[in-house]
């Protein structure tokens, strides 16, 4: 797997800037640029069928951050953007992987363990990653901020304190909003436990 494009910092930087200015359509090309390398890592992590091939989020996060951080013009004043972008990318990697897995086996779901703190997400009875992703998309439409919070805590693995710091709010607020989001997602997943082909 070569990565000819990711050697063009200018393009990544430009996309990052556009993304940080609120143009979310830049996420796709950005993802395509940094993704090949990340997928390599992800594949190595997911390799094999045994339960040990549980994803080590640290490794993917590492790669992701190193990629992003190396962009010299990255503005750290935009920490929120930076972390949110990383979280979005993480989510996409996981979902992407789950999707390719699901082509092979649909039932049983993809068990993915993030950090212990985040275990709640994966304790959902019949929830697999694709269901969670779908429910999150719904949440995103109603309340983008909560969805972002979930992404940060859930997919990137930031702590409550860090999430609060990144979103410039208090830990109490993060905890409260996440509790609501959790309940909402859980309820959503239960309600949609049966396959729903109609949704995107």
């Amino acid at each position, binding site marked *: 797997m070569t990565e000819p494009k990711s050697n063009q910092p200018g393009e990544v930087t430009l996309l990052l800037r556009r993304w940080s200015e609120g143009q979310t359509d830049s996420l796709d090309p950005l993802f395509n640029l940094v993704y090949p390398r990340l997928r390599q890592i992800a594949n190595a*992590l997911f390799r094999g069928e045994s*339960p040990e091939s549980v994803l080590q989020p640290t490794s993917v996060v590492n790669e992701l951050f190193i990629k992003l951080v190396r962009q010299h013009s990255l503005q750290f004043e935009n920490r929120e953007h930076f972390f949110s972008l990383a979280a979005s990318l993480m989510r996409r990697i996981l979902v992407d992987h789950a999707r390719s897995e699901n082509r092979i086996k649909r039932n049983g779901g993809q068990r993915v363990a993030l*950090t212990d703190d985040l275990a709640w997400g994966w304790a959902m009875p019949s929830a697999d990653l694709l269901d969670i992703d779908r429910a999150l998309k719904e949440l995103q439409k109603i309340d983008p901020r909560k969805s972002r919070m979930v992404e940060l805590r859930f997919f990137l693995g930031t702590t409550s304190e860090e999430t609060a710091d990144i979103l410039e709010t208090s830990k109490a607020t993060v905890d409260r909003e996440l509790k609501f989001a959790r*309940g909402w997602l859980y309820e959503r997943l239960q309600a949609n436990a049966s396959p729903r082909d109609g949704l995107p």
Partner: protein
Amino acid sequence: MTEVVQGSNPISDSDHWEDLQTLFDRFEATPADRREAALEAACGDPQLRRRVLDLLKAADLMEAAPSGEAAPAMGAASAGKATPSTFMGPYRLVREIGRGGIGAVYLAERFVDGVTLRSAVKILAPHVVDPSFVDRFYREQQNLAALDHPNITRLLDAGWTESGQPYLVMEYVEGTHLDAYCDSRNLAIEERLRLFLQICDAVSDAHRNLIVHLDLKPSNVLVSTAGSVKLLDFGTSKLIRLDDSPTSTIMATPAYASPEQLLNEPVSTASDVYGLGAILFELLTGRAPFGKASAASRIEAAAREVEPEALPRAVIPDAAPRRGQSEAKLRQALRGDLAAIVAACLRSRPKDRYSSVEALGEEVRRYLDCKPVLARRQTLLYTAGKFFRRHRLPVAAGCAVALTVAVSVAYAWSGQRQALREAERAVRMQTFLFSLFKMANPDHTGKPIATVPEFLRVGMSKLPEYIHEPADLRAAQLGLAESMIESGDLADARTALASIIANASQAHDLADKAEAEAFAGSVDFQQGNIAAGRALEADALRLSRTPSIPPRVRVLSEIYFAFNEDDNGFVSDENLRLLRSAVQESRQRGLPARENSLALFYLASDLYMRGRGLDAKPIFEQLLRLYEGDPLALCDRSEIYGWLAWISNTNGDTPASLPLFRKAYDGYVECSGADSRGALDQLPYWSDALVRAGRAKEAVGMLEEALPAWRRVLGDTSEQSEMLYFLARAYLATDRFADAERAATELLGRIAGKLAPDDRTIGTAHLVLGQALAAQHRYSEARPHAEIAVDLLVKSAVSVYGNQLGAQAQALAAELK
């Protein structure tokens, strides 16, 4: 949007989102069985109530979900236990004894010739090794065999099971994890340090055998009941790698990993120094250097070169009793040496850490033997070097000045005090400077410190909280006051200097007094308080004659006395001699570049004032070379370009002066902004060159454009005189005589009563007004101005330009007669 409403929801969430959350938050803590009733009282919409109840119930279920469920399970068994029948190759797994980022460790048994041998088997996650890992193990055997150290567990075997599980077999050791061992015995700091030394010795030995660990952490250190240490997992790092990336990150535990590991940069023994520092940090404070930070934020912090907070502040509430001390005592103990040692391990850049684990061990021994610790001495240097790098973004504008602060304070610090207590002071100063930057950083205060003067004022006011010893405080205050002068905040600098003079006087500290007086006098001159300035400079010079005064202070006193005297019309040959001697002494004594260049600069300026611009020129050029290549000296270089330009301009080489003015102006704009005093100061002189080059219209345009900025920056002071004078001259050259008259009149009004009656500036103002009036054929009005100009300008002229003005005055007077 309504798409999100599915069959089971009677209402649309998005339509009631706010209400849902409000009610959810309000009744979230209410016991489940009372919620329905409570909700009924609060909300009249039964469907909304139903939805809130559903969400609350879902949230409760989430809370109740066992979190262990999601932990990665090992083998076929559930997390925590291996079924006795599980075999890894010839090894039967008995039970799980540990778990890390790359796999889980089991106590295992093997039967050889009827004997049961115990060992530890580490089952690796398949992704951490490539197919050649067993080969590599055998290649590494020689190195690993050399690693025969009583404190290191041996790596015995490696293999793949039939089902494709890679595993490592290690010597099995009974023991307790380091942190648990220390805490369960309430070990005191000193005992913890002695255990730590055992670890250092073991790691150091491994390094001599060219083996790095790369995953040092408390749980990789076992302590036997007898109190001897065993390190686990040595040698593992060489066997583990992702097949497609030369990475070391994957195996390190983020909480203890070095920045280079987190950032996938090359690792070395310095990475183990970092790991050891992280272990020591936790042994002393009770928590890892970055606490419970997530992997993501650790990586981001590493990229930003954020270093952990100082030891005393990291102490967790539980730590003190576990170390047999009160919290205050513990914090006290962790201040100073130990904080410096740990900090020197945990530097962002590998080369800034201890050069070896051996050096770290020696340092800890020095501490235990109550000998001075090296890290303390290095800290200040490191800090001064670090600021510029680190704080580039948050206080970009303050950077140059910040460095000046750090350097001048550091110098004031080390230059004149006894060496004995220097280290202690250095650390306090470091703490202060560090805190100052924290205060300046919007991340910390939420309200950024916007300007350099503000930054310095905060520093000045906070200083006493950090530095208590009066002499140290004065030295530090002097450094800040001098930076205030450099940043143009004369009023605050003067207030601070007055208090330093008073304190130094009371404490009979002649050196501090002389230095503060020299600077205060200089401020007085700049503010037009000539008599007060002269008195202060004279006293500073007198004090500087005392033998005990350090050369640096003597040089400063001489410079400021001589230059200010000459600059304000009290010219004497003695002053020039003083300046020359200052240059000589600073060179001979090897004083820092700052004093050296200061002496040269004032000598050159003085020579210029004496009409010896061509003698000054080579000195300015020498200064330019001194500043060459120093990225912080852009303002200084620009200043010199301005002088060289003016010397060329007034010595008949206007064409050569124009590009120099351009350099001076552009440089100042770059280093301190278009509205800065330095940049604005160039314009009037530049305009004179343009007038002489026959480009008077450009000169007028340039000055008129800059006038609002001048008025804004300088306010209602006499300092606008230069601008107004040159503007009037430019108007004259473009035949705009009425405008010239207006500017000259304003000029006279501004300086009236503010200067000595024989000040040459008054002469120049009268000259240009006289010229403007004469040009409008109002000869009788012009005549008295011409006479005053002749009076003031002809006799006292020293510089070339002064003589030119004198000549102009005489010509005007002659014309009017």
